Every structure is written in C-alpha cells, then in structure tokens.
C-alpha cells in the first residue's frame, strides 16, 4: 500500500477523526505534529476514526496524520525476556532514559534492542527444506533459556545460505532460494493469533504451589482461569504469587490499568526472588507489561493483545507459558470508554455489544498445542476481574465465566476475616477436575483424589452446620457434629489458608500438600474412633498434637516434624479415655 498523509478533523479525548487517509482497519498511523502513536479503529464515510495511544492535549484540527501502512505489531526476537513494557511494547526503562521520570509523548522506542549482538547457532544447513515455524537456529537468551529462531509462520522454502556467529536482530542470518532474507526479528500483528497445528486436551496440571488451587480447583497447563473479586480481596497478590511459583518456563505479567506502586513492587521483587525450579532470578523468565491506570486507555486496550502475542511466540518455541492479566475489567472499561467516544450503540451497562466476543477471542488464544514445528507448548491464562461493588452478576464477570474453565471466587467475607487466599471453597470450581485426576493419582498419590473429595464433603457439611450454630451456638450440637466443625476448622486454617508473604508457606509442593491433608484426615479418623469408644469431645478437642499440626506447614523441612506429630497424635488417642 502506498503510504500517505491525511489531516486531523476532530479531536475528543483519545479518539480522533481524520480525512484523506487510505489506511485499513487496525493500521497504525502517527497523529499530529508530534507523531502520536495511534491505530485506525473505524472508517465512516470519508473519515477514519483513530484511537491514540498517547495524550492528545494540544492536537489541532488540520494537523497531519501519517500512515504507516502496517498494523500494530509486536517485535519478536531475542531480548524480550526481562523486559518491562507499556501496553504497546515500548520499553519503560528506555522511556525513562529518553524522557525522564514522567512519560512524555511522541516517543518511539523499539520493543527489543536492535543494536545488541546475539550469538546465533544454526541448526539447519544449506539445501535443507524448511517449513513454517521450523527452528533454523538458536540463541542463548538467558542462562537457562534457549531462544529458538523460527521460520515465520507464513514462510517456507529451501535454505540457500545460513550464517553462524554474532548478529543483531536486524541482520540477515538466513537466505532462502527464493531470495527471501531472514533476520532474527519477526513482526507480528498483535490482534491476530499466531497459528499452531493442533489444540490438545488439557491433561497435565499447572503446579502453582497454592493448596486451595492445586488441591481443590486446579488449573491445567494451557487452561484458563478467572479470578473475580471486589477491591482488596487478593487478586493481585494471587496473580503475583502464581507468577512466582508456577511450574512454567515463561511468565507474561500484564498489569492492565492497575497501580504504579504495585508494579514497582513487582519490578523490585522479581529480580531478587529465585525460581524454585531453576535457582535463577524470576526476572529471567518474565516479561512485564505495566500500563497503569493513569496511562492512556488506548494503550491499555492494546496491552492484552501485545501480551498474548509475546506469550504465543514463546509457546511456539515449545515452552509452557503463563499469562496473567490484572485486571481484565480495566481492559473491558478501556473498550467501553473508546466505544462510547465512537458513539457506538451501548450494550449492557454501557459496554460495547462485542465485549463477550473480545473476551472470548482473547481466552481462545490460550491452550496446550502442537506447534507448527511439532513440539508441544502451552499458554495458560489467569485473568483477574474487578466487578463493581464485588457483584458477580455484572457483564464482565458473566462474560468471562462463560469462557474460562476455572473459577476462583474471591469472597470479601473471607478477606474481612483475613483468611488468605480468600478463595471461597464452596462457590469456586475447576472444569479440568476430572481430566486431571489420573495425573494426580499417578504422579502424586493414588489417594490424592479420594482425600480431596473427603475434605470437600467435610467442608460442605460444615457449611450446613454453621448455619445452625448461628442460631443456637455450637454447644447445642451433637458431639459428632462438633467434631466435624473442628475438623473443618483445621482444613480451613491449617490447609486452605496460606500466606503469600510467609517465606516458606508461600509455596507448597504437591507432596507436602498431600501429607498435610492426609494428616488432618488421620486426626479426623482417630477422633471419630475415640468418640465411638465413648471419649468426650472436649477431651478429643484438647489433643495437644492437633495444635502442633498447625505449624508444620511453616517448616521447609517438614517431614521429620510431621512424623513426630503423627506419632504423638497416635499415642495420645491410644491413651485417651
């Protein structure tokens, strides 16, 4: 397409109308004398409607609008890991260098460093036939992370020349017979999903180290989870915790319309914390998008797409990737704001009618796949939802729940009791449950699934009993029900509760999760045994080993202590009368 220039016609906030353009939908244009990064989002008659990723103050009618002839793309290549971007993949540290502590306008910085040289090692040779997505060479991007340089997804051919040595991402490292010159960098339009070969069934759990999640409402690798909750119920802490400890190769953290201080906290912690699987700083496997609430809404709208595109790129290399989006509600609100400036017909609560479709398109980009090359990779998505007034019947929560397979319902009543994570164990669910059971019984314990169901039943019964207690007090209950209340309390306080800030308890391996629950159930069985023998409940409830059990989870090397507590418990029950 020929690249031309048009004129600004009208400006109202982040939405600009221009005349004299030939650009297509979603093409990038540069608005005004300052060349503000913008995107075509509508065409009406002779006017193009443009959303501007930067503040439009001072822009006047008549100023130029320059076309670029291309849509918003992500820059993909070595150097993405450890980066901190705004919503349109501008490096934030580089923006600090370019314009100081406050973000100013009209600046363009590359998503990845175009000057840095990387050592490229080819894995194909002259004469080889290469297919879309095939690896042609590798770069050691981080100490433990190999970056595959792949054929673009829409390109095949025969290698005419392949180089080896140190190159920038822009230099040609490969020439095909048809004359195509390939550099390491790829440009991919963010609104288009990168292709893969086959979507596979989710059968492997994503280990998060969070007992309530792994134990009760597990996420599969390649799965999707929604975590809705009112303000302060723990969405951000949970997403940061998952980003820290999940067993994935790459984490894409998208801070979409949230707090600056939170991002500062994360940027502070990630380089210091160590990935338990690799002993390397977490930052080495992370990509952070920080488009905070006070940064332009159009860039906020784009951040989800830029984020998922980088996630897909690493998936294509055969990695397990997790993307967290905090918060998808702010993304939806950005859509609403832009839509209302376009004077579109509003749907429910002013959101555009295509809200559900956009959410679905985004979550559809998750999945465990066979890549074009035939390897296996996955993207799991965890999306926070911030419902107004904490009311889950609102459109963003409802549209999200229609798509995502796991629902972690945050409960402000639990938050008020300072029970963390405040995931309600009665309302939440995981639709991967059954699909993952075989994996757990094979890889952790044959009793994993049975124990989980037993614990769930106790909590169900507990919920019913609590209603009675509210009316008559617990002393009025029969003895066996009093025991059930106590066992439920143990499950809730010793097992479901887990502080994200405790150095040890923040991450709990599968075996430990299993052992702790098994121990509580062992207490339960012996307690009911004792009750059947006629031991009074207050004697049973006074068992000292019960309280000792509470602190086991706080120990790194918990097994000796747990053994001791269990032995003590057994002898206490034996002698009890």
């Amino acid at each position, binding site marked *: 397409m020929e690249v031309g220039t048009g004129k600004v*016609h*009208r*400006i*109202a*906030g982040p939405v600009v*109308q221009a005349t004299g353009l030939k650009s297509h939908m979603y093409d990038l244009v540069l608005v005004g004398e300052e060349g503000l990064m913008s995107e075509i989002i509508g065409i009406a008659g002779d006017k193009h409607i443009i959303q501007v990723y930067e*503040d*439009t*103050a*001072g822009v*006047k*009618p*008549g*100023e130029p609008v320059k076309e670029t002839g291309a849509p918003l793309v992500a820059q993909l290549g070595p150097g993405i890991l450890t980066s*901190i971007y705004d919503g349109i993949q501008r490096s*934030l*540290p580089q*923006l*600090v260098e370019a314009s100081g*502590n*406050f*973000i*100013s306008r009209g600046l363009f910085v590359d998503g990845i460093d175009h000057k840095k040289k990387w050592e490229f090692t080819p894995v194909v040779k002259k004469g080889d036939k290469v297919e879309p997505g095939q690896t042609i060479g590798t770069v050691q991007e981080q100490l433990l992370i190999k970056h595959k340089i792949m054929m673009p997804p829409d390109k095949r051919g025969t290698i005419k020349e392949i180089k080896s040595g140190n190159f920038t991402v822009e230099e040609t490292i490969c020439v095909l017979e048809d004359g195509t010159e390939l550099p390491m960098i790829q440009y991919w339009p963010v609104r288009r999903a990168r292709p893969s070969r086959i979507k596979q069934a989710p059968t492997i759990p994503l280990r998060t180290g969070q007992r309530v999640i792994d134990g009760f409402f597990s996420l599969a690798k390649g799965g999707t989870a929604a975590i809705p909750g*009112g*303000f*302060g119920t723990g969405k951000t802490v949970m997403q940061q915790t998952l980003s820290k400890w999940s067993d994935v190769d790459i984490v894409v953290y998208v*801070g979409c*319309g949230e*707090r*600056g*201080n939170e*991002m*500062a*906290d994360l*940027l502070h912690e990630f380089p210091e914390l160590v990935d338990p699987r690799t002993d390397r700083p977490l930052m080495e496997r992370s990509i952070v998008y*920080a488009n*905070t*609430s*006070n*940064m332009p809404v159009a860039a906020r709208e784009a951040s989800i797409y830029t984020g998922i595109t980088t996630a897909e790129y690493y998936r294509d290399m055969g990695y397990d990737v997790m993307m967290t989006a905090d918060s998808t509600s702010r993304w939806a*609100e950005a859509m*609403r*704001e832009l839509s*209302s400036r376009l004077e579109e017909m*509003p749907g429910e*609560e*002013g959101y555009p009618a295509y809200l559900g479709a956009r959410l679905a398109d985004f979550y559809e980009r998750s999945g465990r796949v066979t890549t074009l090359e035939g390897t296996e990779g996955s993207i799991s998505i965890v999306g926070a939802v*911030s419902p*107004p*007034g*904490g*009311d889950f019947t609102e459109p963003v929560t409802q549209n999200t729940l229609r798509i995502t397979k796991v629902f972690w319902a945050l409960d402000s009543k639990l938050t*008020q009791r*300072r029970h963390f994570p405040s995931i309600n164990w009665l309302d939440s669910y995981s639709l991967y449950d059954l699909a993952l059971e075989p994996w757990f019984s094979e890889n952790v314990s044959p009793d994993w699934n049975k124990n989980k169901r037993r614990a769930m039943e106790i909590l169900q019964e507990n919920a019913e009993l609590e209603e009675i207690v*509210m*009316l008559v*007090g617990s*002393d009025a209950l029969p003895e066996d029900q009093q025991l059930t209340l106590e066992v439920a309390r143990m499950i809730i306080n010793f097992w479901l509760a887990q502080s994200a800030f405790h150095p040890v308890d923040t991450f709990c391996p599968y075996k430990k999760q299993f052992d702790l629950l098994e121990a509580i159930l062992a207490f339960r069985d012996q307690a009911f045994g004792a009750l059947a023998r006629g031991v009074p409940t207050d004697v049973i409830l006074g068992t000292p080993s019960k*309280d000792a059990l*509470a602190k086991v989870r706080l120990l790194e090397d918990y097994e000796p202590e747990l053994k001791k507590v269990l032995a003590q418990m057994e002898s206490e029950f034996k002698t009890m009368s």
Partner: protein
Amino acid sequence: MTKEYKTINEIKGPLLFVEKTEPVGYNELVEIRTEKGEMKRGQVLDTSNEIVVVQVFEGTGGLGKESSVKFTGDVIKMPLSPDIVGRVLSGSGQPKDGGPPIVPDVEREIAGAAINPAAREKPRAFIQTGISTIDGTNTLVRGQKLPIFSGAGLPHNDVALQIARQAKALGEAESFAVVFCAMGITNEEAQNFMADFERTGALERAVIFLNLADDPAVERLLTPRLGLTTAEYLAFDLDMHVLVIYTDMTNYCEAMRQMGAAREEVPGRRGYPGYMYTDLAIQYERAGIITGKKGSITQFPILTMPGDDITHPIPDLSGYITEGQLIISRELHRKGIYPPIDIRPSLSRLMNSGIGAGHTREDHRAVSDQLYAYYAEGCDLRGLVAIVGKEALSERDRLVLEFADAFEQKFVNQGRDEDRSIFDTLDIGWNLLQALPETMLTRIDDHLIKKYHPRYRKKE
C-alpha cells in the same frame, strides 16, 4: 494570533459551543469575557473544523451570544515557585489570601503526565500518625494513597487534621508539607480547617486550595489537578515530603457526573461517566516516590459514602485504585469513640513493607494480627449474644467478647490531640492481650511473647 471570537452558537449547562474558529487544540485553555467585562476560564473538550466545545470552569452565568472567546493556544498550567508555600488559593488557583499573584519560577501542565512505573521506588518508610488504629493495625507508608471512607456527619475532618498535625517519619524531626484541596465543602468546614492550620502553625508549611460549596462545581475538576501539580513540584523539585489531603472526593465526582450529563454522554453505573475510574486513577496515581528523588507524595483523599454504602461507585472505584482504606464507622461514633475507625474493613496494603524490625518493632505484625483476630471474633460474638444471651457463651468466648469491648475503649479510643508513639500503641495492644491466657496467643511466636508480653517484661 490569538483572535477573539464572538461566534458562540449554543450555551448548555457548563458548555459553550463555538463556531467558525481557526484550528483550536484539544484541552486548550480558553479565556471568555462577558459583555460586562467579567473574565472566565474554560477548557476545550472537543474540537473540529466545524465546532469547538468548551467547558467553563466558573460557570456559564452571565454569558451570552455576544460574549467573546479567546483560545490561548496553550493548555492549563500552574505557576509555581517556593513562595507558594503558605498561600491560600481558590479552587482554580487564584490568590484568595489577599497576597500577590504567584511569580512563577516554572509553569507546569496540570494534566499531570504519568510517572513511568519503571521510575518508581517501592514505598516502605513508616509514617507515624500517632493514631493507634492507623499506626498499629493499618500502617501508612510514605508514597501511599490511603483514603478515608466516611459518611455525612462523621468526624473524618478531625481525623484528617489530626493526621496532618501529627504525621512524622520515625527518627526525623522534619515534618510534612501539606497540600490541602477543598472541593465543595461548606464555609464552616473550611473555617475549621483554616483555624486548625493557623492554631498549629501548619499553615506555614501548607498550600491551600479552596473550592467551597457555593463555588462553581466545574471548578472542582481543576482543584485536585492544581493541588497535585503543586505537590509534585514540592516533592520532586524541592525535595519535600508532601501530604496531600483532599476533601470531599464525592463532590468532585458529582461535578464529573454533571459534566457528563451536559455532554450527553452514555452514562456508566448510577449515572457516573464510564471514564470515572480512569479519571480518579489519574489523580490518585500522582502519589508515590521516584527513584533518586528525595521527596515523596502521600495522599489522604476523604470521601463521604452516599448512604454509607461502600458499594456506591465513588468509594468502590476509589477502593480499586488506592492502596487500602480507612473506614469511619457510624456505630463507633455513636458509642462516643474517637477516632471511630473500624479496623475490620479497613486495610493498608503497603503496611507489610513499612513495619517490623528496622522499621517499627519486630512484634508489630504479630501483635496486629492477634489484636485484629480477637477483635473481629469478639464483634461476631456480639451478634450471637444478642440471640442466645451471654450465659450461653463458653469461658473462652466470654474473654474474647470482653477483649473486643476493651479494645474499643483503650486502643481505638484516644484524644484528638493525643499523639501516641508506635511503641505506646504496641504496648497498649500487649496490655489488652494480657487479659487472655497465653495459650490463646496463637498468632504470636513464643520468642516474641517471652520478649514483649508484660508478664515477662515486669520480671526484668
């Protein structure tokens, strides 16, 4: 180049529609002169070759088709110099204390560019406010934004003033500079604030912006922007630690709603504009610390919850942006407890980074958690007692119930001029916990009990 136009085509509420202009920039500052020569200011909201929409800050009263409009070619800026400290200004930044206009060293755009997240420093310096329910259980740190959610007729202003008077960093003599923005508060309330600032000498280190209840509502949209631009200047140019208090955010949001209605926008929840979250975020996010800078901005927005409803969009959206909230409780107020801060729904999200050894004291987290747990349990038990009577309670439950009452009287309740050190606050907490058997202190490590529990301390 700045021509005057007399081409007003329509006036609707606070909006002017002007035709046949040269190209006018979005958000440009506009000066309007009435036929009688009165000057007003406005800002461009929508601009095209055909029509320019201007919102008028001082209200459109007195404007007519013959009024003239001048587009200044520049966005709104705040004149700033060190002399601004100690001044009282109107809600749109004009001197209100009879003093001279501010001779600017610099002029800053009031829209406020976003702090680059990569340039932010993590806030972690403890601020002692001298109020136990804040310092002990909802600790504030420098660079935080912690709103007070209150209701009509509650003493939120007294709490804010007490914080402004007493706030200090531990071990540093230097106190905070205060930027105070009043939005739509009554003349009487404003007088109280001013009197207190004068009584305590705080005025000398304060900049005050006053938009009162009878001032134009649209002007309120400027007030926090002017105040925060001033705060950024004091913090990041002059290295000061700045405390920004603005009250009442509810009035600010009402002005926003009014503007939205005038522009016939599609309303969001309960008639407030869909962009209210973003707009509030732009104000609240101007708190923080920048790497390599000495100063900081800490914010205390005050808002009254319409109908005491925390799910109302104004407190709800605020809660989604700020780093916690302090809730003023009508129930505690009725009981005669001051400050009536209910710690249960209150939260300081940055507390963890500002407490413990090296910040306050090593037992801080544990004591706070323990106090919190039994106070919350005690409050729940009150509900049960109302049904089954006190007699039905176990011995343990009775202790917890009594603990909750004592907690309100001794820990929450304090004088309006009582400035407790954090160590006093923690010790009051320990004295209350002493009433419970030691085995009930499950949230406190044994070694901390041995070190700080009054029983062991007396033996020393």
